């Protein structure tokens, strides 16, 4: 089945406008691409989802890029990526322009004063979420602690930090708790 680039663009644009928040939205994308449109077999989509989680970068963007690639090759990939990001890109440039123009007026200042606290809560929430699924034994606790210390006190380069964490995982996390 050959999917038209226009149809692909329209569907992905709609997904870009409506998917808020993280990985839970992968199921929504799957429902659209696999069930509603019948563009990809479920197995192939799941393979893309697993790959998207291994490849660095935002998972959702990786997934829609994969869908585009499967349907229409490289042009489909670039089109899907662009269409998925476009709605948030446009909205965010408008918001940022407003922020830069009116950031110093009292009303906007008070909004961002409160938002800073809310964002701190968001980061706590994200660390809990990731921590619960990843930090499951003493080794992972040590890796997490080590990377905090390296970042906080030694201002280490992030490449080195990720390489260290990955190497420690490679050395000490194999076969210990079943599936990693």
């Amino acid at each position, binding site marked *: 089945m050959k999917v038209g680039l226009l149809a692909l663009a329209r569907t992905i644009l709609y997904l870009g406008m409506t998917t808020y928040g993280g990985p839970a939205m992968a199921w929504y994308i799957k429902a659209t691409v696999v069930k509603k449109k019948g563009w990809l077999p479920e197995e192939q989509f799941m393979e893309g989802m697993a790959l998207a989680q*291994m490849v660095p*970068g935002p998972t959702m963007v990786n997934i829609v890029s994969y869908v585009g690639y499967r349907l229409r090759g490289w042009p489909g990939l670039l089109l899907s990526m662009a269409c998925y990001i476009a709605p948030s890109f446009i909205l965010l440039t408008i918001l940022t322009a407003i922020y830069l123009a009116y950031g110093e007026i009292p009303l906007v200042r008070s909004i961002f004063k409160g938002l800073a606290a809310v*964002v701190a809560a968001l980061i706590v929430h994200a660390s809990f979420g990731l921590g619960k699924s990843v930090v499951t034994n003493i080794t992972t606790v040590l890796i997490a602690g080590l990377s905090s210390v390296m970042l906080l006190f030694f201002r280490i380069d992030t490449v080195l930090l990720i390489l260290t964490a990955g190497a420690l995982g490679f050395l000490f996390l194999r076969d210990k708790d079943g599936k990693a």
Partner: protein
Amino acid sequence: MKIRYWIVILVAAGALVAVASFAAPLEVEMAYVFVKAALLAFGGGFAAVPLIQHEVVNVYGWLTTKQFADGVALGQITPGPIAITATFIGYVLDGMRGALIATAAMFLPGALLMGMLAGAYQRFRGSRQLQATLKGILAGFVGMLGVMVVRFGQAGVTDVPTALLGAAALVGLTVFKVQPVYVILVGVAVSVILFR
């Protein structure tokens, strides 16, 4: 790797060099920062946030922690990925051009890798070494996010009302599982009343 992957890499590298020769030094540095964050952000968009924060605030000093937090908040209001905060940073530093460069640098690497690896997934699917390495990296991110909690806490929780607001937001997110965008929108409403 098949020859066409190398062609894609060469074309991408050529395009990068072409763009870089027209770009200002700041734009080249910015592209470097976001490509680097994109290639290191195993575990998705939220992993990119501490990586970007480290470079943009600590290494290059382009933004203060508070400005960066503002950008994260705005990035959460918009639909789509959290890493769209790259657009905010690019726009603040360099207008529309900066926004385009930062956004492309943030999202292209992962997307290109998806295309290159789409056919190869079967080969490394079951690899225990890879799973263990990825788990180690994710544990590293938990540590990095922990540092971010401290930094954002210092910048955002400055008095009793902000502490209460942050605590309420956390309860909403964890206990009542409210979507971040609604937590932010309620936060906006509360802030208008509370901090006027």
